[in-house]
């Protein structure tokens, strides 16, 4: 089994990267691989649990919550979280953590593979 780290730097809705990342990570978890995420820059908006969009059955935040529930470790860059007005992640889904680049460096240290999205 492998350990895969994702670097996600774009937010939900605007581009498709959140979706690609969630789908690759979901497939990896099902196959028994370890998955970690570092959400950097706009990537941190994916941590929110407060998204509401009636036109979609599931919002992007649901997918990331699900990844955590299935064993993924997700850390969002704290400087980016506060810069973007997201108040230390107080509205983030349970289990999505706020940290720093050292957490990412540690993920990369443990990772067999690294994916940028």
């Amino acid at each position, binding site marked *: 089994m492998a350990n895969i780290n994702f*670097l996600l*730097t774009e937010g939900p809705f605007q581009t498709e990267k959140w979706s690609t990342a969630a789908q690759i990570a979901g497939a990896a978890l099902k196959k028994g691989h370890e998955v970690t995420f570092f959400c*950097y*820059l706009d990537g941190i908006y994916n941590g929110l649990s407060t998204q509401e969009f009636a036109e979609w059955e599931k919002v992007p935040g649901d997918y990331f919550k699900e990844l955590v529930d299935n064993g993924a470790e997700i850390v969002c860059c704290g400087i980016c979280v506060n810069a973007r007005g997201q108040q230390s992640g107080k509205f983030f889904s349970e289990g999505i953590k706020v940290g*720093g*680049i*050292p957490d*990412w*460096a*540690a993920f*990369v*240290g*443990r*990772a067999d593979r*690294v994916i*940028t999205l």
Partner: protein
Amino acid sequence: MEKNILFMFMRAPFGSIYYTEGLRAVVGMMSGLDEHKVTCVYMGDGAFYTLKGSDKSESAGYIKTIADISESHYYVDRESLAQRGIAESDIDDMFEVISRDDVSKLISDNDVVYDF
């Protein structure tokens, strides 16, 4: 585990913030417990960052910190410069011009390859 990491800076400064947040990331990568070794290469529109007159005030702090931690290289792809009509005499001394085949060698020599 310590890794060798290549950061490829691909985006034009200053339209997006990747040029400086990428260097923040480099500092963080080098400062962790694992003490990863980092190499930077500027390609595509990222090559514009190497221009002498390009404002490096926001990233100067990171560049200094990186130099303090350990020796680190800043390369720029010759072909990306040529495609943008940038003369090698127009770029800052801190950047070393290399061929695309040299970039290919950097890609295979590093454990991890990020685009930024």
